[in-house]
Structures are given as structure tokens and as C-alpha cells.
């Protein structure tokens, strides 16, 4: 794998994370538990999809085949998507949505923070800009972990179940694969294993304050970064890509 190929994959992976999670949050629009939070979830979706656009545009440049952001988002199939398994998990209820967001936001923050030191100027610039947005996402999802964990018995039980059920999707955040190793060597990317202690510390302290415990499960799912996904992603793409697939080549 050349550095260019690795860089393309590296950028695409983050773009896919942002797009797929943004797509999931978009499903809430109009159905939120309270109007202010409906608006907040849409805000985060907008930030994430905005980030995915910058990243897809850059990935298209890196690839150099004249593709657009939409070619990359709309015309790849499941195995070509490299997002983490966590972000494609269904919304289920507000507790699962918050747990998913909380795990991801805290990872995303550390990841972008590391990329602000990247030797790749473009990636560095995207990371700097995104970091400001993700700081707010972290605050939002952490605040909700506190409210739900330390709110009522029902909310405690619901959020506890959600953080436990989604726990097994957090392990792959910190696995370096071939692409990560190439990016570390080129000083473009970051050693993901190095982010793990900071992430554990951050989520551990919030969960403790929320009267929740860090889930104990040790088995971790993985495969997203290699294009091996859960069944959910196919349905996400069926919605996402419907018009581009049904009317090939049309301009919208």
C-alpha cells in the first residue's frame, strides 16, 4: 500500500464516520424528545456532515481521479465504507443515541486533537476547524450522560443498558491497522493506542459523576475500518444513495 493509498483510506474512514453518524442523527429530526434537543441533534448532524464534506473533498483530491464528494458518499458500497461499527448502530431510543454519541465524541475529540499536529497541512486544517465543533458535541453528550445517569430511576436504567450494550463497539477505536501504521510512519496520523488511556480516563470520570460504572465487558467487535460492517450499514446506504442509484448521472 502506497502512502497515497493509505492517506485516501485514512481520510475516507473519518469522512465515513462523520457522514454515517450525521445520517443517524438526521433520523431524529422532527422526532426528538423535546424541541431544544431536536435542534441540538440537528446541529450536531450538520457539523458532522459538514466535516464529512471537507474530508470527502480532500479524499477526492488525494485520489486524483476527478471524483466529487458525492461520488464518494453516494457511489460506494458497504465494503468500501470504512467507518467504525459504533456510528452505524441504530438510534433505538434517546439513551442509546446519547451513549453512542458520548463514546464517539470523546474519541473524535482526541483524534482530531492529535491530527492538529499532523504533517499533512490539509488534514491539520480540517482537524483544527472540526475540533471547535466537537468540543461542543462532547459537552452536549456528557451533560446528557449526567442528566440521564443521575436523573430518575428509569433514566438511570436506560442509559446504563445503552452504555453497556454499545461498549463492545468502542474497542476498535484504538486498533491500529496497516493504514494507521503507514500514517504514523508518515507523521500524518496518530497512534490510536496512545489515545486509549485518555479516553478511558475522560469517560470514566463522567460516568462516575453520573453514578454509572464503566462497563466490564472485554469482548470487542471490530471490522469497520476494514469494510466488514454490521447489517445496519446496508440499509443506511439504501436510503442515503437511493436517488443517485435510481437516476444514474443525474444532477440534483
Amino acid at each position, binding site marked *: 500500500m502506497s502512502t497515497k493509498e493509505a492517506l485516501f483510506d485514512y481520510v475516507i474512514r473519518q469522512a465515513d464516520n462523520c*457522514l454515517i453518524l450525521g*445520517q443517524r442523527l*438526521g*433520523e431524529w*429530526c*422532527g*422526532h*426528538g*424528545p*423535546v*424541541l*431544544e*434537543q*431536536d*435542534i441540538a441533534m*440537528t*446541529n450536531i*448532524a*450538520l457539523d458532522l*456532515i*459538514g466535516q*464529512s*464534506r471537507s474530508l*470527502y473533498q480532500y479524499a477526492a483530491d488525494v485520489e486524483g481521479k476527478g471524483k466529487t*464528494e*458525492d461520488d464518494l*458518499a*453516494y457511489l460506494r458500497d458497504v465494503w468500501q465504507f470504512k467507518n467504525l461499527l459504533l456510528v452505524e448502530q441504530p438510534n433505538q*431510543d*434517546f439513551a442509546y443515541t446519547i451513549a453512542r454519541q458520548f463514546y464517539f465524541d470523546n474519541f473524535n475529540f482526541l483524534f482530531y486533537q492529535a491530527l492538529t499536529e499532523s504533517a499533512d497541512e490539509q488534514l491539520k486544517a480540517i482537524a483544527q476547524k472540526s475540533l471547535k465543533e466537537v468540543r461542543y458535541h462532547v459537552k452536549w453528550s456528557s451533560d446528557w450522560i*449526567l*442528566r*440521564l445517569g*443521575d*436523573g*430518575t430511576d*428509569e*433514566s438511570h436504567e*436506560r442509559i446504563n443498558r445503552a452504555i453497556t450494550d454499545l461498549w463492545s463497539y468502542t474497542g476498535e477505536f484504538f486498533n491500529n491497522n496497516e493504514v494507521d501504521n503507514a500514517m504514523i510512519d508518515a507523521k500524518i496520523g496518530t497512534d490510536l493506542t496512545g489515545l486509549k488511556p485518555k479516553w478511558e480516563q475522560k469517560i470514566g470520570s463522567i460516568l462516575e459523576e453520573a453514578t454509572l460504572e464503566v462497563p466490564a465487558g472485554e469482548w470487542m467487535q471490530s471490522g469497520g475500518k476494514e469494510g466488514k460492517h454490521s447489517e445496519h450499514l446496508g440499509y*443506511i446506504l439504501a*436510503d*442515503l444513495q*437511493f*436517488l*443517485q442509484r435510481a*437516476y444514474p448521472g*443525474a*444532477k*440534483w
Partner: protein
Amino acid sequence: MNTTELERDFQNKIDNEIRIEPKDWMPDNYRQTLIRQISQHAHSEIVGMLPEGNWITRAPSLRRKVALLAKVQDEAGHGLYLYSATETLGIERDETIEDLNSGKAKYSSIFNYPTLTWADIGAIGWLVDGAAIMNQVPLCRCSYGPYARAMVRVCKEESFHQRQGYEIMLTLCRGSEAQKNMAQDALNRWWWPALMMFGPSDSDSPHTAQSMKWKIKRFTNDELRQKFVDITSPQADFLGISIPDDNLKWNEDEGHYDFGEPAWEEFYDVIRGNGPCNAERLNARKKAYNEGSWVREAALAYAKKKSNSENLVQVA
């Protein structure tokens, strides 16, 4: 002052274009009319999120997806300002929302029609937001201050949505044959419901006369409908698609378009709850509200705990 004097004073203010503010005296009917109208308007924004929200996951490009998300989010924001305006009249948001969920309060019937294709997102922006603007611009001069001020913000955003919708239609109409057909189909389905958004003919509109006297309303339903047809017809010509009305033609003498009569039976049917999506829309709102109750309770319980512990710290 006795009630007659208060009422005379009140009408004097209205006649002199002096805004009525929440703490001012107002006739009970004026207050009730505003509560009904503003809360209906707020509900329309919130229910209106559903037909367009239906296409967020399927928007055909990332640019369109972002624009649609932002648009539907604006509607949630409009709902918030308008619920706040209702609160200035002494009715809480929860109470207003319960009236929607129980079916007691109405919302604009247009949202009881389904969004079947992407072109519907264009047609809603162009026609539904277009009609809404025509209804709402005069409300920026409404006699009740908080409503008028909320409408200034709402109208700015609506006119942006309207242009965005027209641009979607234009892109479709300049696209492939299939896209143009999609646009025509959407126009066929949305045209008459859009005309009905102005409400029944003046002769059948029970609230018009009083609302005009109070300057809540500035133009009659028929005046606004005519204005809408006059502005929209040339826009359809420019798109190259046809408005589904055989009676539509330019009337040189009048300086207006003549047009056919909407099927008012359908209008009343939809109001009675028999539109294609009435049950679905209301169920979606009830589901969101009921399934959100544990979240709202948790937030409240947490806030209470925090304020209690802060008080304890202060006492210590």
C-alpha cells in the same frame, strides 16, 4: 376605567397602529383569537417538520442534505419562537402541545399530504413556503407585539427556504426527462392544497372580519390567494411545467390571473381528519412526545438535585 372605556382605548391603539404588548389590557376574545392563531401556527411549524424530515436521509447530494436539515431545523426554531409568543398570552408550552396531541388544536392542513418524491421537497419550498410567506409577511405588522416580532425572523428564513425550493425545482426541470416528470408530478399534487392554505373564500371565513378590525389580519384570504397565483404562475412558466388548472389564464382587463375554484370539499375533509396523513402526523408527534417523557423527567429531576445541592453548599 370600565370595560367599555378599556375596549375603546384598546381599539384606538389598534387604529393608530400602536402595538399591543403582553401586559396591556386586551379583550378576552382578542387574547383567545391570538392564542388559537399563534399556537396553530407553532403546531404547523412542528408538524411541518415531518413531511420534509421524511427526505433528510434520502437527500440526493450532501449539499442538499445539509440544506434540508438546516431548513427543518429552522422550522423547529420557528416553533420555539411561536410557543414563546403564546406563553406571553398566559398559556404554557406543555399545555399548548397537549392540545395538539389530543386533536383539539389544529395545524395547517397542507402537512397532511405525503412527500412521495424528492421533487416534493422542491414543491414544498416553492409553493408551501411561498404561500406561507404571503400569509405571514402582513403578520410582521400584526397588532400584537410578540407575534409581529417573531414573524419578522420567521419571514426572513421562510423567504430563503422559498428560493431554495424553487432552485430545487429549477434543477429538476433543467435535468433529465425523468427529473422533469418528477417535478411536474409534484406540482400536480401540491398546487391545489397550496391554494387552500389561504383558507376558505372570504364569504365562508368565519374569523376574517373581526381579525381585520383588530389588525391581526391585514388582507383577506381571497386577496392573498390571488396574489399568490399572480406571482406563482409566471414562475411555473419559467420552469416549463404546467399548473394543473384549465381555467388558469391571464386576464388583461383585471391585471390578474383568472383561476379555478379549489375543491373545498377536500379542504373540509382534511380538516375533519380525513387527509392522507392526518393520523400518521399526529401519531408521530404523540410518539415523540410520549417516548420523550422519561427524558424530560430525567432532566427535571437532575436539575432539581443540582439546585438542591447548590443550596446546601450555600447554607454550609
